[in-house]
């Protein structure tokens, strides 16, 4: 995200979307340069795969190009609209591919010390648990906990009431905690079960 005033940012995005709808190539290039990293990070958080995130990002912007004419300033912010598009594309892709990726996250290339290595392991473990959540919980956790959107903004993107966001987030966090707790639990020693004897 850019560090400037979010309202100004959103106005700029909205004007770019309107220009794209009118067929302006430069507006498309500008919007891509401004928002490509945000969309990529969102896709990566959802899929935990760099290649999936890259493909999804391309698709999101082609989708934006196709549907920019449907953006209505009166109905919501440009950021919500853009992430709504991104969400549709990424969910479609994840549902279609049923991809539960085991790719290692490329979050940091080198680790200087043990503390950093442990932190990277914790991050990797948490992200692995996150992508095992059902999609409706995962997207809410990504929006609210990772992207730090307000409930209202997340509800606008998801097209559901704020109460639904709140309850999904609660369940998503609980499921995430349960997954992590299961991993933390010591493995049960293998026991030999008596073989069933059939007469």
């Amino acid at each position, binding site marked *: 995200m850019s560090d400037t005033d979010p309202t100004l940012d959103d106005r700029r995005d909205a004007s770019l979307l309107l220009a794209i709808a009118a*067929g302006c*190539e430069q507006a*498309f*290039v500008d919007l*891509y*340069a401004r928002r*490509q*990293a945000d969309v*990529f*990070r969102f896709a*990566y*958080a959802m899929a935990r795969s760099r290649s999936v995130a*890259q493909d999804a*990002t*391309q698709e999101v*912007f*082609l989708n934006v*190009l*196709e549907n920019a004419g449907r953006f209505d300033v009166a109905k919501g912010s440009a950021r919500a609209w853009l992430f709504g598009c991104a969400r549709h594309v990424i969910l479609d892709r994840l549902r279609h591919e049923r991809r539960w990726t085991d790719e290692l*996250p*490329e*979050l*940091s290339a080198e680790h200087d010390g043990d503390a950093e290595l442990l*932190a*990277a392991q*914790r*991050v990797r*473990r*948490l*992200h692995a648990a*996150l992508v095992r959540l059902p999609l409706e919980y995962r997207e809410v956790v990504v929006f*609210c*906990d*990772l992207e*730090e*959107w*307000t*409930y209202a903004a997340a509800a606008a993107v998801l097209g559901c009431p704020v109460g639904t966001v*709140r309850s999904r*987030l*609660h369940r998503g*966090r*609980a499921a*995430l*905690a349960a997954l*992590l707790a299961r991993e933390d639990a010591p493995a049960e020693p293998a026991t030999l079960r008596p073989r069933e004897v059939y007469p």
Partner: protein
Amino acid sequence: MNPSGDPNDRDAEAHAPELAELRAALRALPAPRVDDAAVRRAFRDRRRELDAARAVARRRRARVHAALAAAIAFVAVGGVVRFVVSQSPQRSQAPQSDAPAAVAAFQPLLYAPEVAPGAAYSVVRVRIPLSSLTLLPAAGADGMIEADLLVGEDGLARGIRFDGAGALPVSQASY
């Protein structure tokens, strides 16, 4: 971490440090380099595809509209024709008309003398049993049919005519 500020959300608090680390790691994640030329190429390709698809959709819509217009025109013309036919005086007033109905021509009888233009003839209306006629659709049925015979001065019949559909059934038994 916990935008709700809900103190009871223990799951949010329990993993807050890890989520913060993941959040920071994601923010530090390098996004793919933006290739300006590739973006412009993608834009142009997609626009071309969209324009082609829109042109196809426009043509399809135009065909549907043309078909609808033709159907409406057909129905309208059909309605007008039906209205005109139903209002035509010949059809609606035919039964009450005083105008002479078209008279069928006499058919020459086999083995009879030819009809001469200058000779005098009489027309005699007769009733003929249907059973005696082998060529009519109702032949063989019980009943009678009216016919006009063209009779010469010598008393021999020259021709015959069945004078219109109204004259044909004399008896209900013929059907």
